[in-house]
């Protein structure tokens, strides 16, 4: 079985880390992910940019584009895509394509990645 492990924390606090504190945390996590990679258990690992970089597309006949992250509490996180895009414009167009193909309700939050570690081996 594949599991996704999603990270939640206070952005105010994480942004208050010094670069050294940030590097320390990353290095400690790398120790764990390296071990998982050697075991052939590690899929892609992504660190997202801050929520300030997020744009939300609300699906529907006429999709609505909103600045900021997804903020509703009545819908749940069901999945994610990672797509290479040349610009936010292309990312929004891609999300619209996906929205038209899939369910017409719900939203997509579009957020650039800060770091992507590709899957080490096919888990």
């Amino acid at each position, binding site marked *: 079985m594949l599991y996704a492990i999603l990270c939640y924390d*206070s952005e*105010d606090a994480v942004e208050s880390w010094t670069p050294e504190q940030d590097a320390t945390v990353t290095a400690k996590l790398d120790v764990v992910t390296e071990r998982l990679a050697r075991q052939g258990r590690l899929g892609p690992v992504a660190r997202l940019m801050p929520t300030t970089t997020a744009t939300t597309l609300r699906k529907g006949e006429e999709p609505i584009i*909103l600045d900021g992250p997804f903020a509703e509490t009545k819908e749940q996180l069901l999945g994610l895509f990672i797509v290479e895009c040349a610009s936010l414009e292309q990312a929004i167009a891609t999300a619209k394509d996906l929205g038209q193909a899939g369910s017409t309700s719900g939203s997509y939050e579009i957020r*650039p990645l800060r770091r992507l570690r590709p899957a080490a081996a096919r888990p």
Partner: protein
Amino acid sequence: MSAVAWIDVAVRGARPQAMGALLRHFRDLDLAEEAFQEACLRALKSWPKNGPPRDTVAWLVFVGRNAALDGVRSRRRERELPGEEALSDLSDAESPLAEQLDEAGYRDDLLRLLFMCCHPELPATQQIALALRIVCGLTVPEIARAFLVTDVAMEQRITRAKNRVAAEQIPFETPGAPEREERLAAVAAVLYLLFNEGYSATGGGAHVRVPLCDEAIRLARLLLRLFPGEPEMLGLTALMLLQHSRSKARLDAHGAIVLLEDQDRDLWDRGRIEEGLALLDKALRHARPEAYQVQAAIAALHARAPCFEDTDWAEIEQLYAALERLQPSPVVSLNRAVAVAKLRGPATALVMLDALARDLGGYFYFFGVRGALLVDLGRSDEAREAFDRALALAKSPAEAAHIRLQIDRLTRKKEAEG
């Protein structure tokens, strides 16, 4: 991270919003600060035992407010802290409070707090010092170091600013939309001032001033989370990130200035660049270009160029022309002339500079640019004159050293030719 370091970071992150809410409650900066300090002390006692609260800001506001009601001023006679059950019950108390302190409330609270510190009546240096002390929670010695003044002088500066602000009547009602926009613009201007205070620092003091840039970016990101659809806030944050991305490359190991064209672009911080570009992309989607967005777009073109020779000067020149229309200033025109020099040669640019001579006769950078253009045109004697003027106007040892270097080059060239 140790427990104390972890709590310190959490409290620092929560401070601007918690202080904003406490200020609304007490309507007095000193009382709000005192209540916040008290809440921090209690956090140090409670969090290691009970674990971190779900909502750090709400916890600090709630505890700070109650501590003040208990009588903050009497804390020096060793009082019993409230029973642990009172604190661990906070998770229940937090929810209604968190509802009261909803996003909209926080955002006006924070904006009010920042706006108070950025009061237009205060001189710029006092605005920045007050914001660093009250909003960011930097200590007086930390701020004094950043401004290269003594602790006593900084303490006085902050006290004066506080007294000035206390005498002002800042309205505590929820601001209307135009008022909110006005406050946001004033705050944005001071954030950029704060950033530049750190960014323009050169020479020996440079490294101690980088925190000013970091604080400016941290506050800008926070404001952006509360006002996600403001193109100029997006633009300002992008601009600061893009400029700050070059900070490691701007000075060499001896503290000498490295010009953009000579910078090692591998030293540029890719993370900041990517984030800045992403924010600029968001801003431009609104198609409401204003000054910060245009400046960010210029910074983005530099960031995107793999090397100096690949810089898109045509686009940069157009953006400076747009900036001249949005925010006319001789300094903007000077920057446009620099782009023109790359595009159409130094002679054309020099003509543009002549038109600016009257306005910029006391500006270091003007004579630096003029000297460089004259060097390119082979007019060494006039170049020497321009550099001499620049040298007299240099505001830091690094600026002076940079100009001396140009003068030395001219002298060596003359000797070689002679």
